[in-house]
């Protein structure tokens, strides 16, 4: 009893144990804002795809080196390794966006590998040492280093970037290619489980649809099965721009084919598809100008299929609906979203193309069924700038917009602060984003998009999340 008051007065001290700096859950609705996470990794075997106009690149590996350990995520790897297509190894890079976001890594442009930056104030993990701004470790021989590294004459683990084995030490090292060029177009995500369908163009004018799955919540995907799940017939050159939706136990895959938008069905989670003999949607409206493509599909609660598509080569987004998922009608002779509807006098101007829709059914907290629509549009966000005394107009670019509908996709209200995703290079120049696809992953929404630089050169698929990590 004598000690009880003392204990009581000491009790408050227990509270000073502290708490993490930031609490509070961010609530995702899939609308905005989106945070860019950099390049998406799509693996084909042990290599991943890079920009279509890039060279195959890899890393010089000692011929006697043991293969890296198998992994599902970076957490399974050592300090300088990343999980690259299921194997722990240092990762090559030639741009900062390729090393992921939020993991503390950056591209070391001296060695072209993703590394952990360090300084006098910011040390390295474990036994690693800071060497010219990036962490490495001291070594006596190659086996002291991590996968993809060799021991340099200065007793530091280093990596050597290569295109061919001839660039490595002859007879001792081989160039192990990590990244091959790949022309990937119009990704389509499906959740539960998280699957990716994407058009892969082996040559400039050919296209086929491949399926990939993710084991790390969408940070990377691996093509599975190895063969395309849908390929053009001998008489066709290209099938592409996939859109996918689940209707009961069946996967519906919509895609561009020569005469319109085709459909294929799968009952094995997208591993194989049975293709319809004829397109389900053709260009038969005046505004479509003979062109329909880039479909985006959503299935409502009553199993009605909403098929949104780009018409007229960027003239707008049209809607076709189907009660049975097989026969489609167009409820309107006009697009449901066009450039006028989404233009904003301040934030998004001079829009001259809109299309590439991605759609999802959405339920708000009061149970109202709605449709979320993401799309790409080509317009201007910035103002003209004065550079060296000359007025330079802004550069139009592709960005991602968002709209929502509460009447089964018949009409859409644009988000008041479109575009919802736009990467800014500087005040005037913007990187480009197109062909969005969105899926919920955990308590966030994941967006895959087709990226390009301000000049329009494709940079491959990128990832963004809402809300920010």
């Amino acid at each position: 009893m004598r000690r009880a008051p003392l204990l009581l007065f000491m009790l408050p001290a227990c509270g000073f144990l502290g708490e993490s700096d930031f609490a509070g859950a961010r609530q995702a609705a899939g609308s905005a804002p989106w945070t860019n996470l950099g390049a998406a990794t799509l693996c084909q075997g042990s290599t991943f795809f890079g920009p279509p106009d890039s060279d195959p690149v890899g890393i010089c590996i000692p011929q006697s080196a043991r293969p890296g350990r198998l992994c599902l995520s970076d957490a399974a790897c050592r300090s300088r390794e990343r999980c690259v297509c299921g194997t722990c190894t240092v990762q090559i890079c030639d741009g900062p966006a390729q090393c992921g976001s939020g993991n503390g890594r950056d591209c070391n442009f001296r060695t072209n590998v993703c590394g952990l930056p360090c300084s006098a104030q910011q040390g390295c993990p474990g036994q690693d040492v800071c060497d010219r701004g990036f962490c490495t470790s001291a070594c006596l021989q190659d086996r002291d280093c991590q996968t993809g590294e060799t021991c340099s004459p200065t007793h530091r683990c280093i990596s050597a970037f290569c295109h061919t084995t001839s660039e490595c030490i002859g007879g001792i090292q081989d160039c192990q290619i990590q990244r091959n060029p790949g022309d990937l177009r119009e990704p389509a995500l499906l959740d539960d489980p998280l699957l990716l369908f994407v058009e892969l163009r082996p040559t400039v004018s050919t296209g086929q649809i491949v399926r990939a799955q993710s084991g790390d919540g969408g940070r990377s995907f691996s093509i599975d099965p190895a063969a395309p799940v849908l390929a053009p017939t001998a008489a066709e050159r290209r099938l592409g721009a996939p859109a996918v939706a689940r209707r009961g136990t069946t996967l519906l895959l919509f895609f561009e084919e020569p005469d319109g938008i085709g459909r294929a069905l799968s009952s094995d989670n997208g591993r194989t598809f049975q293709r319809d003999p004829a397109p389900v949607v053709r260009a038969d409206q005046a505004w479509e100008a003979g062109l329909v493509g880039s479909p985006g599909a959503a299935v409502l609660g009553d199993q009605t299929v909403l098929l949104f598509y780009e018409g007229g080569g960027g003239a707008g987004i049209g809607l076709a609906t189907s009660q049975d998922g097989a026969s489609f009608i167009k409820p309107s002779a006009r697009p449901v979203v066009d450039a006028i509807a989404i233009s904003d006098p301040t934030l998004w101007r001079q829009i001259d193309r809109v299309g590439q829709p991605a759609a999802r059914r959405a339920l708000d907290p009061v149970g109202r069924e709605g449709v979320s629509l993401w799309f790409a549009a080509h317009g201007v966000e910035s103002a003209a700038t004065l550079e060296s005394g000359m007025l330079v107009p802004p550069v139009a670019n592709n960005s991602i917009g968002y709209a929502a509908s509460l009447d089964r996709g018949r009409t859409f209200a644009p988000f008041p602060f479109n575009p919802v995703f736009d990467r800014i290079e500087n005040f005037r120049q913007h990187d480009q984003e197109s062909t969005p696809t969105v899926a919920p992953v955990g308590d966030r929404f994941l967006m895959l998009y087709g990226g390009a630089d301000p000049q329009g050169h494709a940079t491959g698929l990128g990832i963004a999340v809402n809300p920010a990590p």
Partner: protein
Amino acid sequence: MRIPLCALCVLCGFSNVLADPLDTFGFDARGKAMGNAMTAGTSGIGSAFYNPAGAALAPAPEIGLGYSYAAMLLSINDRDARVSSSRGLSLGAALPSRCGSACTFAVGLAFYLPDQFIARIQTIPVSEPRFVLLDNDVDRIVINPTLALRLGPIAVGAGVTLFSDAAGNGIDFTVGGRGGMQVGEAKLDVALPSRAAPLLGLLWTPRTDLRVGASFRGQLDLRLRLDIIAHVDIPGGGDTVISIRALNFYTPRKLSLGVAWDPTDRITLAADASYYNWADFSGGVPDLRVLVDLQIAPALLQGTFPADRLHDTMTLRAGGEWRRALAPDRMAALRAGLAYEPSPVPDQVLLTSLADNDRFVVSLGAGLQLARIAGFLDKPLALDAALEWHALIGRTAQKLDPALPSFSSAGSIVHLALTATASF
């Protein structure tokens, strides 16, 4: 220093935080257990918060130390909102001194110190839902020094509630090359000037078993004024000024009226009505301005946001205490309370997504008063405990624009408090 050529006002909205942790949970365990219906019923360590005049009614000098913890079981869209637990130390004092047969002069103090933060400011985009009153506001320091004077049946009190701004000349740094040398300079000038709001209190004791009280608290907030200036001293470089103006921890004017009645020697009943002047609040969305001189001239972009439109509220509270002597030197008390706290936040049908709910608060508590602890303390010591359960009435914000996300908010709060009070 170059003159910035133009200003770019970045559209960047953040919802910020409102109110006072003691408004949400009360101060001492006795008051909390009685539903915080203490405007007329306070007479000791809680008086600097509940009614400054109450310190003059303390029978003897009192010092109390307490600790409280609140589990914030709140959800948005049926998902855990992960609002951090609110916990902290409270120190109260009421030091009366006789100045005549019917005159008492007293000094009071109410001090609350969260143990994680002195104050915390978190910002997220204004369109994302968050508990605007229950998120950050319960994590700030509160300091209320007061004075009181009793003349016969009338006691009056006055004091201030203290806080600070975050201001100063900001952060100024220069990087670049000068005279062939690389230059990096930084200057930091951030001040926390104090702010104060008045506290006034009145207690009238027309009969020995009846007390009527009124109290007033002025408006208080933390004004954030911070400028960050970057000089890039290289050819083609320029100046950038980032200017942030924000209002946080807005604590509205409060006018409380209360009555406390002792129908028997063992029982005290109390009731309060508190009026909160939320409608005067404006500035829920901070202003962020970026001035740029990078030898290019982007045009002015002005963001506009809807007004906060908070409305005034009236909170009703009631509580009771039953006392029983266990022994000549020991007394026990059981307490209960009930309160209804309406939300000042209007329906969120436009851009902002401020989550807040009407709340019912049910409280229970017990106390043990010891005349002395042999061998340890030869003075009276009171040990009090309280449990508050805040039930949030579910609320759904349905946006007019379907492109803006609607959201729902609900949940409950469980708050525990312990107070030890020594009399001298």
